[in-house]
């Protein structure tokens, strides 16, 4: 293995190299770096993939749907049910955003499993941008709907007043930690999964013939990564619905 000596400590694969963001089309506005990077490229690919999947599948408009149309309809129905069950009737106007969020994250996570591609959700800045926008929007929706009564979210409902001294800071901190936990959950799952895949690839390259064993494990882990990709997109979306429900219905 000629490349085994190049990487640090003789391990043939550098697991962190796959997360490097480099500019494809450099665009600089003074001090501001607005380059079109590989992360941007894969976000565009993910969005186009969603558009193509939904647009082309619905094209036939058959009353009895075929395979592709059935998949598109099932994804619509699943998210519609999720919004209805978790947010209620008032949540229907937020359905387009929730649906776009879910499909974007789902396709982003899944496309990242293609060898050689870039997982844009494995960067904290991407997931944090999504999570902070959701957090601020949900808080704004809550304040717009309830005014100052929105602060009742942090006061316990039936508990005696003296416990409020301890409970209110706890509730406040738990509320403020929502964007952090939401973003770190997705980012860390994606990053850890891809590092794991790269490390096992390194194991295969290190061992010669016995590399069949890490190869079998790698197949299993790739299957697990597919599950994690779908699950994390689903969890992000359903937690957004739960937070929206908290703001609209104040417990």
């Amino acid at each position: 293995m000629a490349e085994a000596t190049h990487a640090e400590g003789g391990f043939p694969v550098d697991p962190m190299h796959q997360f490097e963001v480099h500019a494809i089309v450099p665009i600089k506005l003074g001090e501001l770096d607005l380059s079109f990077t590989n992360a941007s490229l894969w976000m565009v690919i993910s969005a186009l993939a969603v558009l193509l999947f939904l647009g082309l599948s619905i094209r036939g408009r058959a009353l009895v749907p075929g395979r592709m149309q059935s998949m598109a309809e099932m994804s619509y129905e699943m998210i519609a049910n999720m919004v209805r069950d978790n947010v209620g009737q008032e949540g229907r106007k937020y359905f387009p955003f929730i649906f776009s969020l879910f499909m974007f994250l789902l396709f982003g996570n899944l496309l990242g499993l293609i060898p050689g591609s870039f997982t844009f959700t494995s960067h904290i800045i991407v997931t944090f941008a999504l999570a902070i926008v959701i957090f601020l929007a949900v808080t704004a929706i809550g304040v717009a709907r309830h005014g100052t009564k929105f602060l009742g979210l942090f006061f316990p409902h039936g508990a005696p007043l003296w416990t409020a001294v301890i409970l209110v800071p706890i509730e406040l901190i738990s509320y403020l930690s929502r964007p952090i936990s939401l973003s770190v959950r997705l980012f860390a799952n994606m990053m850890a999964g891809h590092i794991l895949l790269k490390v096992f690839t390194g194991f295969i390259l290190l061992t010669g013939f016995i590399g069949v064993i890490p190869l079998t494990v790698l197949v299993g882990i790739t299957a697990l990564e597919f599950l994690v990709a779908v699950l994390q997109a689903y969890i992000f979306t359903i937690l957004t619905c739960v937070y929206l429900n908290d703001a609209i219905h104040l417990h």
Partner: protein
Amino acid sequence: MELEAAKMIGAGLATLGMIGAGLGVGQVWANYFNAIARNPASKDEIGANIWIGFAVTEAIAIFSLVVALIILFV
């Protein structure tokens, strides 16, 4: 103690946080099986929700992994 050695030890210690998360994830399915044993008809209804419990509990394990990685590489 050198910085590198301290980083390694710190990263190793940080992963001890996964003990709790491992127990928690086991609890999710243990209670699922208990519930099915008591009421087999509720299998599908609960089965749809165990994944949410799993992901939220797993997130704690991931947080401890992130702390370990930050100690090692930042």
